[in-house]
């Protein structure tokens, strides 16, 4: 457990963790740092979204640079293949990740009026990891697409000292 933590954490994160822990000891009321999400947590988050329905791969394209320098702003575009008609459209697009403090990133609700099932935003990534987009269709099926991102400067865990 500790070994796997060490291998994934950057040296900087580790230093900050240690500092945070020391501060936590000094001021006993300081809350402990939340644990990072894990691939298991991401799978659980996807299960919460999908429920009993099966998740199929395809139809969803996640457009994100494979190598980002600054994890504080990672541009990301999700597009889903769909005619976006009254009978067959995308109802929702969700994005989850593996190694941020929380697996959940964004959930959007759209409808046939959108015309095109696409969403662009900028997200924070705390480490090199896999990002997964899940699309919910009007017929109740779920489709997913994923992308691996390498991050050189991590977000979220940077402190202000």
């Amino acid at each position: 457990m500790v070994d796997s933590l060490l291998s994934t954490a950057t040296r900087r994160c580790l230093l900050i963790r240690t500092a945070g822990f020391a501060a936590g000891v000094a001021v006993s009321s300081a809350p402990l740092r939340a644990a990072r999400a894990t691939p298991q947590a991401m799978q659980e988050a996807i299960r919460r979204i999908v429920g009993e329905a099966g998740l199929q791969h395809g139809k969803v394209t996640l457009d994100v640079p494979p190598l980002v320098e600054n994890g504080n702003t990672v541009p990301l575009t999700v597009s889903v293949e769909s005619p976006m008609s009254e009978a067959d459209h995308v109802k929702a697009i969700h994005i989850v990740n593996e190694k941020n403090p929380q697996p959940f990133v964004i959930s959007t609700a759209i409808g046939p009026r959108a015309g095109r099932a696409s969403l662009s935003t900028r997200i924070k990534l705390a480490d090199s990891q896999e990002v997964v987009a899940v699309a919910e269709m009007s017929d109740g099926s779920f489709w997913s697409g994923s992308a691996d991102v390498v991050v050189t400067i991590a977000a979220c865990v940077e402190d202000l000292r």
Partner: protein
Amino acid sequence: MARVMINLPPRAKRGEVVAVKTLISHPMESGFRVGTNGALIPRDIITLFTCTYNGEEVFRAELSPAIAANPFIAFFTTATESGTMVFRWTGDNGFSTTETAAITVE
């Protein structure tokens, strides 16, 4: 008052799919960072963004701390009729901002 930028075409043909881009100034403090005193900085994020087109909701997004500072959200909608689009951001500490944009459909 947060600064907001909205980009959508001022005129469109009926039935045309138009791109809507929104940007709002907000720190999106995640609640996972440690401040100068060693304590966690409390979370301060936008949690919900909605867009209504002549009163009908066409887009809704639930945001998390993993959204970058100054949230940028872009999506598409069909230009059905002339009118106004109302954009609303709500979040922690009673944050609420509303912005409107007009669109003319020919």
